[in-house]
Every structure is written in C-alpha cells, then in structure tokens.
C-alpha cells in the first residue's frame, strides 16, 4: 500500500473544492426542468464535445483499457479507431438531426415519437436500471482500488465520492455535470500524460517498448509484433492476443456494439442534446472524436508499459535516500510482481486467490496477472509525491465523471420517460424539477447499494452486465430502421427488440469461450460452438442479436400498419429537410470536420497496421 504525502491530499482537496464550487455557482442558473435536465440547450459545442467524451471516460476506460493494453497490446486501439470513431461520426452527421431536431428530451422519448409508447417503455426501463447499476459497478471498482492501493476504507471511499457527485448534480443539474466533466477531462489528460512520458523514457521510447513487448509476445507463442501492430495478425483469431479475427471485430465491435452504444446510449447523446444549436449538437460527437482517437496513447500505452518496465525503475531506483523513503511508506499487502516466473510481467502483480491469498495459475501453469492493476501500479511506480496526488485525483475524476454521466441520464429518463409519462402527467414544471433532484438522490443511493451488491456477489454483477449486453445489442437495428425506413412500425420495433434480446441470450447460452466453464460465461443451453476468446463470443452474440432484431422488425413492419408520412417529418430520413449551415464556411461544417477525423483515424490505423 502506498502512503500519500501532504501535498497529495492538498491536490485532492483542491479538486473536491472546485467541483463542489462549480455546482454551487451553477445552482442560481437552474430555474426550470429544462435547465436541470438539458442545460436549457445553451452549451457551446466545444464544452458539450469534451463532456460527451468525458462522460464515457469512466473507470472502464482508464483502468479497463490500461488492463487491455497490458493483455492485448496496441490491438486494444480497435476499441477506439474501429469501435468508436466511425459511430461517433455517424451520430454527428446522420442521427443528431433527428434527436435534436425532433425536440425529444431523451432517447426513449424519440422512440415514443417515432414508434409508440411500449417501445419507449422497454428502452426507458432497461436504460434506467442499467445506468444505476453501471454507476454502482464503477463505484465498487473505485472503492476496491483505493482500498488496495492506498489502504483507504472501502466504505468511506465510495461514500465520499458518491456524496460529492450527488451534491454537484443536485445543485446544478446537467450543466454542473457537464462543466465538471470538462474539468475532469483536462485533469485526466494532464494527469496521465506525464505517466506515458516517464514510462516511455524509462524503456527507451517506442522502439524500446516494441523490443520488450516482442520478447513478451514470442514467450506467449505469438509473432514478435503481435503486441505493437493492430491489424497485421487479425487474419486468424489464434494469431493475435485478442483472440478475434477481422470479420468478427469489424462487424461485432465496429458495427453492432459500437453503433449500438455511441448512437443510442442516452448517457452520451444527452450531452449533445444540451448543445445551443443544431450545428453545435452535430459537432459535439465530432469534436469528441478528436481526443478520442488519441486516447489509446493515454490509456492503453500505460498498460503496455506496465507489462515491461522494470519493477525497480521509477520511484524505486531513485538512489539510497529515495529507496529509504519508499520502503518506509510502502507496506507489503499489495500483491508484488511475480519474481522470475514470467519473462515480462513488469509491475503488473499476480492475481491472488481470494481464499488463500496465493497467486493464481492458468492451465499452462503460468501466473495469472491482475491486469486491472497495470495502470495504478505504473502510477505509484513512476510518480513522486505531488504528481502522485495529481495522478490519483485524475483516477478519482474518471470514476466520478463516469458516475455523474450515469446519474444525470438516470434522473432525466426517470423523470421524463417514466414518472411524467406513467405516474403524474400534468404537474407544474417546478414539480418535475424537484422530482429530478429527488431522482438524483435515489440514483446515487441505488448506486451505492449496487456497489455493495457487487462487493458481495461478484457473479451477480457479471450476470447483470450480461443481461444489459443482451438488451443493448439489438438497439441500433431499431434506431437505424426507425430513422432511415419510413415503413418501420411500432409493433415491428417492439417485436424486433424482443427477438434481438432473445437471440442474444440463445446464442450466448449455446456457445462458450475456450477454457470457460458453463454458467455466466455461456453454454447454459448446450454447447453448440466454441470461441477462441470471450471477446469473440461477445462480438458474435452482438452480430446475432442485431441481425435478429433487424430481420424481425422488417418482417413485422411489413404486416402491420405504418404511420402516415405526415406524422413523421423530423423523425425519419427522407421526410425531414436536411440540415444546412449556410452561415458557416466549408471548413466549419460538420461534414468537413467528419472527413478530417476519418482521414486522421485511417492514418493512425495505417501507422500501427
């Protein structure tokens, strides 16, 4: 465990003071429910763009992508360059005109306007449940990490973080969440950038990192470049550490999962809906795509570095005086890197058996590494007092921005799509504003409860995440048909969503990743097929779900009565005037920005091919 110096605590307190101060300042500007839930649609594009990306920059991104970087290498960048940027561009160019132009206040509300009440209800209920549980999982991960890393109380950590998030959203609503997300964005970037710089310096730059990872790759039976090239070994699932072939990757991740998340998830779309004009709303995901395509260097590279830096580098080789300091402030209950068993485990510690505390081994007898600790371990290895406070505050900011994104999406969907629609229709606006604030409290309380559920029953959370995946996978088919095919009907959409979810569950139940046991990992309906990795199974489950939803929606729509075209302007492509930006120069238009982002993303794929 690492003990912090006074300067580290001062940095954290400064951060808490500012996020609470922003919430308190913005309270005076919240007068209506639209101010609270949609920031009065008054925020400029660069702010909503950074908030859009920051709301997604939660624990899963910073810790999870670092872990994947250590596990899979630079191929993890597919989650950005294939699994995010194209979908963000599509959202900005083609879908925002419907979300923003229809004046829907939420994504489920768009479904009601386009289809019917039952389709909205399914989406609103599943989304509301999903957001608070996701928030709880994030909170649990934060509490566990701070306990392991700093020895802080799990209870105190999650209570303090949850209360800070609660206070600033309660006071300033979505505007407060968005402003703090911008602060958190810069904090995460400026907190992790020196980690990458120091780490690369320690291993001799990118060439040094590549050389060390080549040793690691060959020791694991892959080609030397398997950890530093993103496409070269995607021809066959067995040839790359991800265990996925290019078709499953492009269709499963790049199309179904990516478009399903970025184009339909209200958590991110809500930020764009808060923009001050249609052009600003369309620019929001495009502006967000600029930092997004560079994030692999900020969150994946630390994981790769953690795998190869010497455990005695950084703070630990700073000479006798430093060594004495570190020894005096470093206890031994944090799992230490395996001494000699693995050729390149760097500072990544082994995963410990929960009962015995001994390192776990895989079927081949190799030590199983705890990849989730890759980035945090690199942080405590390289950052001295002062900068360590900044790095840990950046980590806290990532947890809090992810949680705030979930809570603001929850309070809006609850108030507008569930409470106002089914419980109390015609109350004064002040009533819904108050309800939004109560929903914020309830959302945070459920998140805390979910964190304790996760702490007690890990498999229950795995199961919940699985159910969420089943519900989410078919969604993009529903939205795509709704927005681009005027013949799609409400009955078709509803039947398609159910069919997609059932198909996802059936595919998952009939397949199993290699080496997994029957249960939450699949195979509970029989073992029809085996996948080389869990990711491959996830990608193919998504493909099956999307296809089932797409086909069933079309079939049922063809035999049910469509809505009159007069009802659909603003909701369907072809019946809606195309947005124009006559006052903008060509390079200021969303399409130009989209081309630029796409070209740069293509270049990154080629550089790391």
């Amino acid at each position: 465990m690492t003990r912090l110096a006074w300067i580290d605590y001062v940095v954290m307190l400064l951060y808490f003071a500012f996020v609470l101060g922003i919430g308190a300042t913005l309270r005076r500007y919240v007068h209506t429910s639209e101010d609270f839930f949609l920031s009065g649609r008054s925020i400029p594009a660069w702010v909503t763009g950074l908030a859009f990306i920051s709301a997604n920059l939660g624990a899963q991104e910073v810790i999870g992508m670092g872990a994947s970087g250590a596990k899979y290498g630079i191929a993890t960048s597919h989650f950005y360059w294939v699994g995010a940027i194209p979908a963000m561009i599509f959202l900005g160019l083609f879908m925002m005109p419907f979300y923003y132009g229809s004046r829907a206040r939420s994504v489920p509300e768009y479904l009601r306007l386009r289809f019917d009440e039952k389709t909205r209800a399914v989406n609103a209920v599943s989304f509301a449940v999903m957001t608070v549980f996701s928030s709880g999982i994030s909170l649990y991960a934060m509490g566990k990490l701070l306990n392991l890393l700093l020895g802080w109380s799990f209870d105190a950590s999650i209570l303090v973080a949850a209360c800070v998030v609660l206070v600033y959203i309660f006071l300033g609503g979505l505007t407060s969440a968005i402003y703090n997300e911008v602060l958190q964005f810069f904090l995460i970037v400026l907190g992790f950038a020196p980690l990458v710089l120091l780490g690369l310096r320690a291993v001799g730059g990118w060439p040094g990192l590549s050389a060390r990872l080549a040793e690691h790759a060959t020791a694991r039976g892959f080609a030397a470049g398997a950890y530093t090239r993103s496409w070269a070994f995607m021809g066959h699932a067995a040839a790359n550490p991800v265990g996925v072939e290019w078709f499953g990757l492009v269709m499963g991740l790049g199309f179904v999962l990516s478009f399903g998340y970025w184009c339909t998830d209200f958590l991110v779309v809500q930020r764009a809906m808060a923009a001050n004009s249609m052009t600003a709303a369309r620019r929001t995901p495009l502006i967000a795509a600029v930092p997004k395509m560079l994030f692999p260097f900020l969150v994946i590279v630390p994981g790769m570095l953690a795998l190869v830096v010497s455990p005695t580098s950084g703070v630990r080789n700073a000479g006798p005086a430093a060594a004495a300091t570190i020894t005096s402030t470093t206890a031994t209950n944090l799992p230490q890197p395996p001494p000699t068993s693995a050729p390149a485990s760097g500072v990544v510690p082994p995963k410990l058996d929960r009962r015995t505390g001994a390192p776990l081994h895989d079927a081949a007898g190799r030590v199983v590494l705890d990849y989730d600790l890759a980035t945090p371990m690199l942080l405590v290895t390289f950052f001295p007092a002062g900068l360590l406070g900044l790095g840990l505050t950046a980590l806290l900011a990532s947890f809090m921005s992810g949680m705030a994104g979930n809570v603001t999406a929850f309070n809006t969907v609850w108030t507008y799509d569930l409470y106002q629609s089914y419980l109390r229709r015609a109350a004064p606006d002040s009533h819904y504003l108050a309800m939004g604030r109560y929903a914020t409290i309830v959302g945070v309380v459920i998140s805390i409860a979910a964190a304790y559920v996760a702490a007690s029953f890990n498999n229950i959370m795995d199961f919940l995440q699985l159910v969420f995946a089943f519900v989410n996978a078919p969604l993009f088919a529903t939205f795509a048909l709704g927005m681009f095919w005027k013949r799609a009907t409400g009955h078709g959409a509803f039947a398609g969503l159910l069919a997609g979810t059932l198909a996802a569950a059936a595919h998952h139940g009939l397949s199993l990743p290699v080496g997994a046991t029957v249960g939450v990992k699949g195979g509970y309906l029989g073992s029809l097929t085996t996948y080389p990795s869990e990711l491959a199974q996830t990608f193919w489950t998504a493909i099956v779900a999307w296809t089932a939803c797409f086909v069933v929606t079309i079939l049922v729509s063809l035999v049910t009565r469509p809505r009159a075209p007069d009802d659909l302007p603003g909701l369907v492509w072809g019946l809606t005037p195309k947005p124009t930006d006559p006052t903008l120069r060509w390079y200021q238009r969303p399409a130009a920005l989209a081309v630029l982002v796409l070209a740069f993303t293509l270049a990154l794929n080629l550089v790391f091919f």
Partner: protein
Amino acid sequence: MTLDIRLPLGAFFALLGALLTAYGAATLGEPATAPTGVPIDLVWGAVLLAFGFGLLALVRRGR
C-alpha cells in the same frame, strides 16, 4: 452560457500548477522527487501553470 467554464478551469489549473511548482522547487535535489532523473513536479507544475494562465488569458480576451 451561464458561466464561462474557462474561468474555473483556468483558476484550478493555475492554482494546481503553482502548488506543484512550489513543491517541486522546495524539494529540488531530493532524489525521491526526481526518481527518473527529471524534477517532474517542477516541470509538470510549470506546464499546468501555463495551461491555467492560458485559459484565464482567453477569458480576459473574451470580455
């Protein structure tokens, strides 16, 4: 726009930068604060300070 976000952002990073720079200067020469050979608190504190003042300058110019 209710509040220019660059104002609290600039103030936060300027304060944070000043804090780290001062701490880095006060501990200059101590091996524990420059473990990789770089007085990183001092250097990165200056970067944060410049970023914070840059944002504050933008706010001032916008008025």
